[in-house]
């Protein structure tokens, strides 16, 4: 059973496969930085603190609640 890719106008080109080895350094370093960004919005100065105080928590307070992270 072959699925016809419905694509208006242009014909579908096969998407290039990126090897796992090529992706690994991006996934490790990029992934780490991106997860750190999520941590600062979602959890810093809540259960754990990398930075003293409550400034980060208070500043992103509303986003943290509305995105569904446990806030306090």
């Amino acid at each position, binding site marked *: *059973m*072959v*699925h*016809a*890719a419905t*694509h208006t106008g*242009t014909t*579908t*080109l*096969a*998407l*290039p*496969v*990126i090897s*796992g080895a*090529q*992706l690994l350094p*991006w*996934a490790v370093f*990029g*992934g780490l*930085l*991106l*997860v750190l*960004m*999520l941590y*600062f*919005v*979602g*959890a810093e100065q*809540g*259960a*754990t603190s990398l930075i003293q105080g*409550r*400034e980060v928590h*208070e*500043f*992103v*307070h*509303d*986003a*943290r*609640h*509305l*995105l*569904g*992270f*446990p*806030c*306090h």
Partner: protein
Amino acid sequence: MIGILLARGMLIGILAGLLAFGVATLIGEPPVERAIALEAGGGHDHHDGDHPDGGHHDTVAPHEHAAEGGHHHHGAEAADGEEEIFSRGTQAGWGLLTGLLVHGAAIGGLFALTYAYAQGRMGALGPRGLAATLAALGFLAIVLVPGFKYPANPPAVGNPDTIQQRTALFFMLLILSVAAMATAVVTARRLAARWGSWNAGLAGGLLFVAVMAAAGLVLPMVDEVPEGFPAQLLWRFRLASWGIQATLWAGLGLGFGWLCDRAQARDAGALRRGDRPALF
């Protein structure tokens, strides 16, 4: 190519975060403001009429905990001791915007890395179909399904003394959910050759549902809604939270797919020539 995809994902993620900010301002902030007003009024006077007899000060627990813990404050509460760091206006404006843009950029980047791995490995899907599929699965695994067990809570709901456990449980379930979804997709892809893509998809879906249902039964329940907290307000807040997340993920999936679809022919040409593909 991976770097270009990552940049596209973060860029679209920021734009989707901006859209989410619009939705949050429209439907998210009103319930947040009401919850803070209830919280601030909770320990003193019951102007809101939720406690007809007005004498049950001990029923609104979180506020009392906050006074002891001393780290639980909103601009509106500044009257009871500690100085306010940011006004409610800043929290609802620049603070909310910053939070949603940073979150959008981070989710967009992680989405792009997942897309980079998935492209060419998910059957005959083109850029738009692949991005939309991944965004739908991501929304299910990262937002909706874990949210059934540990839903979003407005200010005034949640005991500050249990923040450690609640945070640990929340992220544990989140990681489990992402792992279960990844396993389900890989399993479905493996089975597709033998069972056909429909039945293989059903098997993958069943695997995800089974794992998450088991986790939902095993993990402890968190019930910290103060007595007398309006059910309608809680529902509106949670609905708004899903609306904001749905906006973010839909904007990301559709925007990223659109961008990669229109660049597809040029990307392929650049790769053939050994050039670096352009961002747009």
